[in-house]
């Protein structure tokens, strides 16, 4: 992982220590044994217990719940075992198919974000003054509240009165798109905002990756008279491929997590054109109160992401340079 290699650059202040070189130790540390074990468990206990209760336990209980037909309002007596009924229903429901397809379309935003971010990172890394200022500017959308951003874009994207379409009309576009009100433009609108907010994060990680490329490579290339474009495609792109891989994985995972933006911006509409599996899950669980069915969605989603991540790890061997 990118971040691991960065760890070496962490400076730890040299403490004026009275480190006494103690007797040489072999493989066996003098501090092993049960005391060390107990100390270790105590230190990680809060984290581990929290994770177990809030993550591991829910995953396992989702598995159980997904085979039941239950709405939590009716109490445990209301639960009945229905086998794979929920899954059957899920795979034959058009809405779920639609949501999945939408999510796969959303994935297109990931490579676009990567390309823009890498280009900006290369420019900011070498070719501008005020580097730090630019980092802050592009980082701003990433730290801003998604809800506030969604509210702002709701107005900016207004089909007739919104500033974006007014600008387009004054530029001579006769029928500007209806953006989030238009079935065929709502998903691209969501993607546009995803790209806008995602650039900052990707850019910052790319900048770290660029710093790890040895300068001598570029110097040598320059001696040989290689053009900037040649240097970019033959040195920069291959050498940041581990970073690209990390960002691809986190990007894909986070595109399956997009929730706030869609709920506030479109609520899945119009006509389910921005419905994603997590929004569908939310609707089924908390508005329709179908606990068992929603658990089945959770499980399918979980497995889907595991599969996608696994595939990415297999395919990476073909294009990532370590």
């Amino acid at each position, binding site marked *: 992982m990118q*971040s691991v290699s*960065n*760890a070496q650059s*962490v400076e*730890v*202040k040299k403490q004026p*220590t009275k*480190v006494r070189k103690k007797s040489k130790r072999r493989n066996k540390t003098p*501090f*092993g044994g049960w005391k*060390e*074990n107990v100390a*270790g468990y105590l*230190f*990680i206990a*809060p*984290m581990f217990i*929290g*994770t177990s209760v*809030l993550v*591991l*336990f829910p995953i396992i*209980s*989702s598995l159980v719940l997904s085979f039941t037909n239950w709405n*939590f309002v009716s109490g445990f007596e209301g639960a009945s075992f229905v086998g794979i009924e929920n899954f059957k229903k899920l795979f034959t429901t058009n809405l779920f198919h639609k949501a999945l397809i939408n999510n796969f379309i959303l994935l297109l935003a990931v490579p676009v974000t990567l390309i823009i971010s890498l280009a900006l990172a290369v*420019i900011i890394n070498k*070719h501008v003054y005020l580097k*730090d200022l*630019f*980092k*802050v500017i*592009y*980082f*701003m*959308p990433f*730290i*801003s509240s*998604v*809800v*506030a951003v969604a*509210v702002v874009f709701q*107005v900016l994207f207004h089909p007739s009165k919104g*500033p974006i379409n007014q*600008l387009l009309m*004054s530029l001579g576009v006769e029928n500007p798109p209806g953006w989030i009100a238009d079935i065929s433009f709502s998903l691209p609108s969501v993607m546009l905002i995803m790209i*806008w907010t995602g650039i900052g994060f990707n850019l*910052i990680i790319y*900048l770290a990756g660029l710093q790890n490329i040895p300068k001598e490579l570029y110097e040598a290339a320059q001696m040989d008279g290689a053009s900037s474009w040649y240097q970019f495609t033959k040195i920069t792109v291959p050498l940041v491929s581990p970073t690209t891989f990390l960002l691809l994985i*986190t990007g894909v995972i986070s595109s*399956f997590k997009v*929730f*706030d933006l869609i*709920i506030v911006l479109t609520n899945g509409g119009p006509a389910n054109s921005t419905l994603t599996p997590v929004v569908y899950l*939310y609707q089924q*669980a*908390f508005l329709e109160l179908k*606990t068992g069915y929603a658990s089945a969605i*959770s499980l399918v989603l*979980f497995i889907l*992401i595991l599969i996608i991540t696994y595939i990415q790890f297999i395919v990476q061997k073909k294009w990532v340079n370590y």
Partner: protein
Amino acid sequence: MTTTKGIDIKKLVVTIIMAIIGVIFLMPFIWMISASFKVETDVLTYPIQWIPETWNAVENYKGVWTGTMPFLLLYWNSIKVTVLTTITSVTVSSLAAYGFAKINFRGSNFLFLIILATFMIPPQTLLVTQFLLFRWLGLYDTHMGLILLNSFSVFGTFMLRQFYLGISNELIESARMDGAGHFRIFASIALPLVRPAIATYAILRFIWTWNDFQNPLIFLRSKELYTIQLGVQSFADQHGSIYSLMMAASVSAIIPLLIIFIIGQKHVIEGIQLGGVKG
């Protein structure tokens, strides 16, 4: 390259072009702030008045802060939840991070792997069972529940572990020779050494918790417990047609973040690079 008096012309041109792109990039924010100062009828006039002709800032912000959805209360709730979450999360993560980095105990690698693996799970897939669990435990519709939800961070543990790994083992071992226990070493040697990292993680956790919308949406019901993000959304539902007020609400939700980010931006950016991932 043409160089005059140490200034690289090419670089300067690129900087100016990038500055223009940067301004376009920040346009939504600039528009939001400007709209929050305007009278309603001027918000959507075209061409856009970047500097309002008629100022209505005081009235707009007053309307938001003391109106039907009083932002004063929302702020208080958000600050409470965010600060307590940050404190708990930093404590939990740095304990675990020290444990994984500096204590040799059985199964540490395996347990660390389990914790790292949970990062891949989209939080939404956990919502249903977490919701049931919280109702059963009596944590539903409480701030306590919200605080717990964001307190166990894989990101925090992973990031702080990187820093603890950077502390020399000899330092720890010599302290052990002198008879100090791990807790003592943690509190008086390790923790002070990683203070910058703790600050970084605290800022990030603050920002993410402040921005959390999904958990309050699901785990809060009472209006008087609402956090700022939930407030902005229900404000938009109620006043969806009064854009100047909506923009004032949005600005109010973002301002504390901007302040914290601008103060700590170096920390934030380094932290993101080090942790590598959000979570």
